[in-house]
């Protein structure tokens, strides 16, 4: 059931069945509010027929010139609703919005250890554009893949030519 609708403040009162999962971070209120205020169209939720939150996606549009792109900040699906193609629908939605915003590409960061997610993004057409060293702090710090998929505006697919060298987090533009 992939009907998406815009995420609203009240959804934060019922997203516990998704957010109590260890891989989904619960952020401070202002983080969500900032996204809702700035990029409301990029924050979508999938609701089940019984009214549960099945998953949601949070994103934004940013960058200048040919770096104008959509970014996936968070994508999460409740354990009960996995392997139903939900993540793909959520990603499609974000890509559609980015298309309408005339973005050149969509990007996201993922832990290099998160094989399941990387595989899924690969299947959705994302490539590893570059590795960002020690992007995730922790013990030990973990590298991130910066994955990208070109939008139709990037006719020559310039945005998805992989970099040959890894970058430091401070060098990400």
């Amino acid at each position: 059931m992939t009907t998406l609708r815009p995420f609203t403040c009240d959804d934060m009162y019922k997203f516990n069945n998704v957010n109590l999962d260890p891989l989904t971070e619960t952020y401070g209120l202002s983080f969500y509010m900032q996204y809702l205020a700035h990029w409301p169209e990029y924050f979508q939720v999938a609701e089940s027929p019984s009214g549960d939150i099945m998953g949601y996606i949070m994103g934004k549009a940013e960058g200048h010139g040919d770096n104008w792109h959509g970014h996936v900040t968070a994508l999460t699906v409740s354990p009960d609703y996995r392997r139903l193609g939900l993540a793909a629908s959520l990603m499609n939605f974000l890509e559609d919005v980015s298309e309408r915003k005339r973005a050149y590409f969509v990007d996201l960061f993922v832990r290099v250890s998160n094989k399941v997610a990387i595989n899924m993004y690969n299947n959705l057409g994302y490539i590893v554009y570059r590795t960002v060293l020690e992007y995730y702090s922790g013990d030990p710090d973990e590298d991130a893949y910066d994955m990208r998929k070109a939008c139709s505006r990037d006719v020559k697919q310039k945005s998805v030519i992989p970099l040959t060298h890894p970058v430091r987090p401070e060098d990400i533009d």
Partner: protein
Amino acid sequence: MSYKGAHVQDSCVLERRLRPIYDWLDAGNYKKAIQECDKVLKKSPNLDRALALKALSLLRSGKESSCITILDSLTEKQLADDAILQVMTMCYRELQQLEKVSQLYEVALKVDPTNEELHTHLFMSYVRSSDFKQQQKAAMALYKLVPKNPYYCWAVMSALLQAIRGEGVDHPKKKSLLLSLAERMIDKLIQENKLEAEQEVQLYIMVLEAQEKYDKVLEVLDSNFGTKLSGDLPQLRLVYLKHLNRWPDINVLCKKILSESVDRWQIWLSYLKSVFELYISNNHSNNHQQDLADVPDLDVVDDTPEKAHEFICKLVENGSDNGFLMRGPYLARFELCKQMRELNKGDESAECLLGDPMELFIEYFRKFGHKPCCVSDLREYLELLDGERRLEMAGKLIREVGITSTNIPQTEQQMQRHICALQLSRLCGSHANLSAELIKALVTALSYHYLHGHQEYGAKLLSTDQAPADAYTLLGAHFLYDLHRMTGTSQPLLLAIVLLKYTLKNSPCNFHLKLLLLRLYHILGSGLNAQTIYDSLDIKHLQFDSMGYAHCSMLSSSGNFGLASTLFDTTVKFFITNYKDSSDHLTFSYKYGSFSKLSEFMNFQERLGCSFHYANTLVEKHFVSFVHCNTIEQVWALDILNNSKYMSETINWDKLIINHNYNVYVSWDPERINGPIEEWKETKDHNERDSKLLYIKCTLLDCMQSALSIFKAPEHRRIDQLKAKVVAWKETIKGNGVVEDSEHKLLCMRLLSKLGSYMRAPYLQVLGAMFDVVEAVYIDDMEQCTQVIAITKEAVKAMTSDICEALTGESKSPDVYITRKVNLEHLSYVIEILSNVSLLCLVCWEIIKNSQCGASKKAKKKVDNSTRESITNLVMCVKEEITKLDEVLKPHTNELTPLIVSKMGSTIFDDLNEQLTAMNLSEEEGSVADILTKAYAVTIKELRTVLKTKSKFLSCIS
């Protein structure tokens, strides 16, 4: 040039000199910040920004009046320097005087009328105080100065808000005037060809929508403006088509969307709604004929259930999407069946078209039974079958899976289907009337299945995965809870804890296991163990509000005052910070032009500010601070004494809202068919009881505040105010009468309200009498004083002898864990009462001291002495009772598990124990009894410490 250079240099010097003040402020060291301010001000006494910073530093170190003096002096200067105004704004925001900020900027704009920045701040200051009318004025003034579109839109939005949230709410005429004004303002933009950005188009739609001009909205969506929107246009169109009842258009549009993506549930619902709307209206007119020859399928309007069925079947045949089998069309058939049933009650048309609904369930199960969501999908439609047929279906599903008592799942999918069938069986009521023996057997089988599933299919899983086999344990825990309810003993609960803990060790991230453990520990009154589990859930931010009911609210009544105090502080801090910040989000919405979010944000702000959990935690926090008040100095530094209003006056009782998320607890109880737990009658009843309890506690808190701050009130009103508060409290308690506890039927249900147990504690007897003592001492009525002191002493003695008796009898009780829980709760109330009594003794003492100091007549002094003696006498009595109670508690700090627990295993649980032995759990069971006993001992130790400090405290005042 030279002037400008000098200026730059000046401001650099200024920044450098002021920097340390900001740094200290940021670091939270306000004393240093004040010192630094003074240093700067010594050199340049007229530096207003340093003065403003001093005001802020003073405010944050609690010196409100000195801060206000400086602010007033600065206000008089009519400043227009934004840096200074920003600091003053922070002060006024923290003082909650938002109107002052607007005044500041109004004055500043008189000095510097063309300053865009100042105009913007003025506008935002009105946003923060929700003064929509002034917002509109400020925005228009700004637009006249700087003709940018966003400013113009701010004005339009302000007019819209006046109409839908401001004065327009009560005055329909004003509302329509304001709305047409807003529309004309946008029309003007369009005429001037200036309507460009997506946000501006959205605002236009909002204005039209507020006037119910849905036709016009559709025109906008179909025009060039529509292309500027980044949302889902067809879905937007549907919203407005529905408002206009344009069912044929809706029907065709839905078909088009669905044929592209079959899984969009809301679209399915809209489609079926349109089918039935059309069907009903056609039945009345009966002249609707469509020439189907040349129309492509998708453009045909489906206006009968038969056509809808055909459409659904076609999509079912088309199969999958994205490589996944989609649930949409399958579920649509259930919805079609449901709607047909509703339309033609009692007739067989649904069956004629769709066949036996039971077959739909079985087919769905065959297709999706290996997905966990199958259960919640089907749950919504179980009402299509009556009770008996549900049972029949449950039986069929179990047989379908092919797992009997003699075999085990051969694949992970089969296991998932087995789990799904079991969960559905429970939902269908198959387990409702089982005997204890059968439940026991079922639990044994479930734990066996868990063990097998874990060994076979759990090995490859990541530590962050939820293992599918965990579902057996979750079911098992619910069955054990049924058994507990049936037998009234704690054994099944302990076993459930064993099972859950064992499973949690294998799946350390499964939060469902943790949520059940949290609840079970609280059911057993073990707050300390609950805390460990709670910590592992990593509850934070808004979850304090949505999940606080499951733990935070339980802590003080389980005797864990220390833990409670910490969590109350964190919780209250969350609410205060976020409520203050919430107006920032409104200003961001204007900044980014997300006008559609403004109403939502304002509602959310209210939901947060009026949270029941917030009010409850605030009140509880004060009572815990009374328990922790160890010295006389601490009493006079109590937070409650800083409150300028009574607590009951600060809570918006009519608007209090329960924000608890109960549905996060999964279960498969038949009751779940009736909708989310939040909406159950029992849930609402207990929420209602909680509200009553909060009100009682709040009125008592008012009494305490009034008594403790008796010398703050003007002399002639002191005792009257206290009397009035005490009367209000007593009446509230009496109004509630005796509250009978109901039963906690299901593990997934919120725990029972504490109203019943609280009412059984002798608050009224002891504290009621104690307030009479305060009054008698104040009016210096010796005779009355003697009388009420005698009553108080009796009440205190009765209270302690009751609890002592209960505690002594604990070891003889048939079920020590259940008794212990009840006793511990009562003990917590007793300790809270004793803490309040101690504070009130101090108040009496202060009154006596005060009147002695002020007494001029010698005769008066004599009376005082006898009052003094009787108070001393009362204090001695309370101390004695505290000592008695402490002595009784002494053996309860023994960390050895009572013998009775080891005896327990030999009763009805022999075979389950065998099962647990097979799972290497026999030792674990012992350890659960151990950790419960240890935690209990630690809690009792903490309570003894409280009692000892109370005793010391009382020694200080006599």
